[in-house]
């Protein structure tokens, strides 16, 4: 704990000294009178101070989503007759709330200091600054305590409908497949053959045809989804950069498909590949989100990323790619995926372009860059990889509407 003269005491000292000096130099006793209240207040200086104070801090919720307010729980002991002001000195991408003032001699319960993380990621909250003040507010004792680290999840993009493939793996799930099976969706009527269940007999059709007919139902199957999050580039406005949109979109898609009992895997495409194979359930969701948040991202020229790992891509899986499509190696990987027979859908999150100074050459460069980007997207569309643009503000359902409205036909 460091003790020092408070700013208030320094000002009183200035007033007292200036008054007394002018009184002596100018020979005007009235200036000594000006110094009187300041000298009296300074004379109340206390020497006895608490030798040490105990601060205990914890987070009320160590895992939270970006832009959601949380609180730090702080307990302070040993401040005695000194009042204490507790305030969070925030780290980057953290907004601290109001400070809390504990009156002199206050005891008991903890205090709660609000803060809001403004960006996803595993990051420290900052420091807890405790300032002790005596009753005349002349002395200040200052303590800094490190606050714990938070796991801030990206705010998931809204996604209420999912894209479903026409061919689904034969695993029990909740999507209505084209194949006939044991689901609840009526598929048609066919003639009875020995061994069929009698409760499925369709009596209106039987009386119309004069022979036993029974109802058939569609099979209900699960879908394998692999989300590819392109973390190689991070361009655009902070808070709405391509990486922000990639992670928000990916976490929205993961949440939506896992809620629909689908099997979801994740590949982080950065300077190195990190991936988790498809799975289901709440624990799997936490693993995927942890991978999203902890991935360092970045770009490395020498990294060999063209071919994505076979183990992370089960056959017949739908591949949703969130990317600004600025890394040519990812574009090559997508072509490779398409050649391997996967159904790939790219959600383009590029909402920024290089700034130009307004000169003719600069404008020409920008135009060439835009045309190059259009060419990349056009070439992907031509090989059967649809590219939709997402602005990061609207729901993901808007760009995906043409593919979510009906089943997405698989072309091999």
């Amino acid at each position, binding site marked *: 704990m460091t003790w020092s003269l408070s*700013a*208030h005491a*320094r*000002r*009183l000292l*200035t*007033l007292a000294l*200036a*008054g*007394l000096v*002018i*009184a*002596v130099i*100018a*020979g*005007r*006793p*009235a*200036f*000594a*009178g*000006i*110094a*009187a*209240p*300041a*000298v*009296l*207040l*300074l*004379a*109340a200086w206390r020497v006895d101070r608490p030798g040490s104070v105990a601060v205990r801090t914890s987070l009320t919720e160590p895992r939270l989503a970006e832009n959601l307010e949380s609180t730090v729980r702080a307990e302070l002991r040993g401040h005695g007759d000194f*009042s204490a*002001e507790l305030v969070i000195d925030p780290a*980057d991408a953290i907004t601290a709330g*109001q*400070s809390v*003032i504990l009156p002199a001699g206050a005891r008991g319960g903890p205090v709660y200091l609000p803060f809001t993380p403004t960006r996803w990621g595993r990051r420290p909250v900052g420091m807890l600054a405790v300032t002790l*003040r005596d*009753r*005349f*507010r002349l002395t200040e004792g200052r303590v800094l305590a490190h606050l714990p680290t938070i796991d801030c999840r990206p705010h998931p993009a809204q996604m209420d409908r999912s894209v479903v493939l026409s061919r689904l793996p034969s695993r029990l799930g909740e999507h209505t497949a084209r194949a006939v099976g044991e689901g609840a969706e009526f598929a048609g009527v066919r003639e009875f053959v020995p061994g069929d269940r009698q409760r499925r007999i369709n009596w209106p059709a039987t009386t119309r045809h004069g022979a036993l007919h029974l109802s058939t139902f569609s099979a209900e199957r699960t879908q394998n989804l692999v989300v590819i999050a392109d973390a190689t580039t991070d361009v655009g406005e902070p808070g709405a950069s391509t990486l922000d949109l990639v992670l928000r979109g990916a976490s929205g898609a993961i949440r939506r498909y896992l809620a629909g009992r689908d099997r979801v895997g994740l590949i982080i495409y950065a300077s190195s590949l990190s991936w988790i194979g498809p799975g289901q359930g709440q624990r799997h969701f936490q693993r995927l989100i942890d991978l999203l948040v902890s991935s360092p991202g970045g770009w490395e020229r020498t990294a060999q990323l063209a071919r994505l790992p076979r183990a992370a891509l089960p056959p017949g899986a739908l591949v949703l790619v969130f990317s600004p499509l600025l890394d040519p190696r990812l574009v090559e990987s997508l072509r490779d995926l398409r050649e391997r027979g996967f159904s790939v859908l790219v959600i383009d999150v590029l909402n920024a372009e290089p700034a130009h100074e307004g000169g003719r050459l600069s404008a020409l460069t920008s135009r060439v860059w835009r045309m190059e980007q259009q060419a990349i997207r056009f070439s992907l569309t031509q090989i059967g990889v649809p590219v939709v643009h997402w602005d990061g503000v609207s729901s993901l359902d808007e760009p995906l509407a043409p593919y979510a409205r009906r089943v997405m036909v698989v072309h091999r």
Partner: protein
Amino acid sequence: MRKLRWATIAAAGMLVIAVILWSAAPISAAGPGARIAVILAIVSGVACLVQLVVATATLAESSGFDSPLERLARGLVTSIRALPWPELLIIAVLALEALHRSRPWHTAVLGVALLGLLLSVHLAETGAAVGVLRRQVPVIAAGIGLTALAVGASALPGLPSGPASSVVRVIAALAAVVACALAVPTWLSRDR
């Protein structure tokens, strides 16, 4: 809490204007150097208020490619935060008052206003309520009483004028201030 802070900043603003006007008036009667003192007082007064306003503001992170205007604003805010403007204001205002001829009651009112300004600046920068000053009220009252005594002593007509009598008066006032400064806190803390 935010409303309270703005109220104390407004009070500090009014007191800044009051002490500058009070110590400067009448400017024509002041000695040489009064104009410089007035300018210094105005600059430090404005900077003091700006310092209170921007105290809790957080500067946006520099992107490394700031425009000259942004760099200027950033440097201005940093320097305003760094310098002790209230102390400069006190010195400028007292110097301005000293440049006028002797007017004890006028000086005493200035002293009370300066004390009020310092208290309001402290409340504004710490965000504390006026209630935290409740325990200081007896000491402040005793201090103002001493100011009145010092002013009264300096206005006594009976003493002969001259440098020796002025020195005697100053020493008497200083002795009274120091004696009370030692006695009053002891007396106040006797029941603890």
